[in-house]
Structures are given as structure tokens and as C-alpha cells.
């Protein structure tokens, strides 16, 4: 059980901005835009952030990782199961590396 002041500050900061955003939605409910540019922008943020996170990792990865990414995507589309998709990707990387090494 250990932590550092840096980690505590980061986590408390994350917690504060999260509750602040959630509470603001309720408190400002009557003044927030329900449609139009701002609302559409807010809706698109999570997907765009995840795409920005994944894309560089995918193009800088090895061929083994590219194949594994296809397996991950395929399994997720078929099963809609996050755990199965992750396991398929990990197993694929493991197997290809085993084959190349052996």
C-alpha cells in the first residue's frame, strides 16, 4: 500500500473536475444547448479522444500487432464483448511472436 503526493494530487484533480462537470450539467440545465453545434461537439468528444489514442499506436505497431488489431476488431464486432475482443488480440500477438521466434 503506497502512493505519492503526485499521484494523490492527480487523482483528486481528476475527481474534482469530474464531479464539477456532472454537477454543472444539472445546475445549468435550463441554460445548456440541447442541439446545435455545442451539443454535437460534446457528444463527439469521447469517440474522437479514443480514436486519437488508438490511431498512433496502430500505425507504429509491428505487423504482428496489425494482425492482432484486425482480430480484436473482428471479435468485438461479432461478439460485442470487450473482454473476448481484448483476449483475442492478446492471444494473436502471443501466437505470432511465438511463431516468428520459433
Amino acid at each position, binding site marked *: 500500500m503506497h502512493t505519492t503526493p503526485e499521484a494523490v494530487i492527480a487523482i483528486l484533480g481528476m475527481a474534482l473536475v469530474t464531479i464539477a462537470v456532472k454537477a454543472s450539467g444539472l445546475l445549468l440545465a435550463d441554460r445548456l444547448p440541447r442541439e446545435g453545434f455545442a451539443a454535437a461537439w460534446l457528444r463527439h468528444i469521447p469517440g474522437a479522444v479514443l480514436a486519437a489514442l488508438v490511431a498512433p499506436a496502430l500505425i507504429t505497431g509491428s505487423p504482428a500487432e496489425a494482425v492482432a488489431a484486425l482480430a480484436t476488431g473482428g471479435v468485438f464486432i461479432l461478439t460485442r464483448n470487450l473482454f473476448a475482443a481484448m483476449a483475442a488480440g492478446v*492471444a494473436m500477438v502471443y501466437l505470432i511472436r511465438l511463431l516468428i521466434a520459433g
Partner: protein
Amino acid sequence: MSTLAAPYRFSEQFCAGARACVPVAISVAAYGLVWGVLARGAGLSLIEVVMMSGLVFAGSAQFVALDLWTATPSSLPIGPLILAALIVNLRYLLLTATLRPLYPEKGLWRGALSMYLVTDENWAMTVAAMARGGGSVAFLMGGGVLAWISWMSTNLIGYGLGSAIDDPARWGLDFAFTATFLALLLGMWKGRSDLVPWLVAALAAIVTAQFVEGSWHILVGGLAGSLAGALVEVRKHAHHA
């Protein structure tokens, strides 16, 4: 409305909310297990896992945080971690605003504190109940408490599983991050209107990552992609009008 009802109604509504959220709590559990495994790999300590899941309690933001986390405190990117949590969670403005009808005119500040327990899952169930003429603060809280317990307990189980593995790369587990994020992304697909924002986000992130050190590509790509998505959506509506 139910806000004037006797106390026993609260527990009744609380249990109804928890029951309605059982199916989605199972999906929370699956994500929680994966997050726990990855948190171990990212170098979070047990107490940090408990603090983050207990206090932040926001799945997407916590997944993004794992990508930014470093095990060495001196290089922990505190600013980017907080900024990323803010940006990823901004969409909650839209979600919690729709819960306004559940709260009385006065004393909204106390209601604001209860927003801590709002997740995508219990929000969706509560809004569905509201559409049927039901739903209440207690209903929302019941689902929230169930989601919290489900998230925290599976995070800890995942963390325990993660620590049983000494060398993650040997088992291909270094790819678990990318695989998880890819699956999370695919799970967010709602239709063709996601194509432009995702492509713009990906391209902007790839270019930024080439030229700028650190995690700026997440911020640049996320902002560029979401703004592009909003632009396309607003243009389309203008054409139809």
C-alpha cells in the same frame, strides 16, 4: 411526483433502480475487470486504484488516464491527467442536464452532489424510466450504487489477476492496451456520422505524435475530431432544413 412521497418510497425506488441496472452492471463488471488488469500494468498501486475508482468513478476517463500514467512520480503528467479527465467527461453536461426534472426547484445544490453517482448506465435506465412516466432520484441512486460496487469490486479482482503475471510482454499482454482501446472505440460506433470525426481525430493524432513528444496527440486529435463531427452534423441539418 415522487419527491413528496414518504421515506419507504425512497427504498422502494432505490431497489427498483438497482434492479433495472443489473443487466448493465454486468457490462460494467466486464469493463471493470479489464481496467483492473490494465491498471496493474500501468503501474498504479492498490491504494491508487481504490482512490481513482472510488473518487473519479468514470470509466472512459479512467481508461484514458491509464494511457497517460507513469509509475515514476516525478514524471507523472498531473496536468494532462486532469485535463484529459475534464475533456472526456465534458459530455456529462448533456447527460446530467436531462435529469433536471427529477429535482425540486429549490435545494438543487444538494442534488448536485448526487451527480457523483451518475454513470452512462444508470443515466440511461433512469431516462428510460422517465420516458415511461417513472424515474426518481432514488431510482437513479439505486442504479448508481450498484454500478459503483460492480466497478470497484471488479477493478480489484482485475488488479489481483494482473499482479499474478510477472512479465506482461511475454504473454502478449503489452498489446492489451491497444486492443482494449480499439474495442472501446468500436463500441462507440453509432452510425456513419462517426466516420468523419474519427478519421480526423486519427489523422490529427498521428501527425501530432510524429512531431510532438508526450500525450498532446490525444488532446489535439480529440478536439479536432469532435469539432469536425459537430461541423458535419450542423451542416447536414442546415441542408435538410
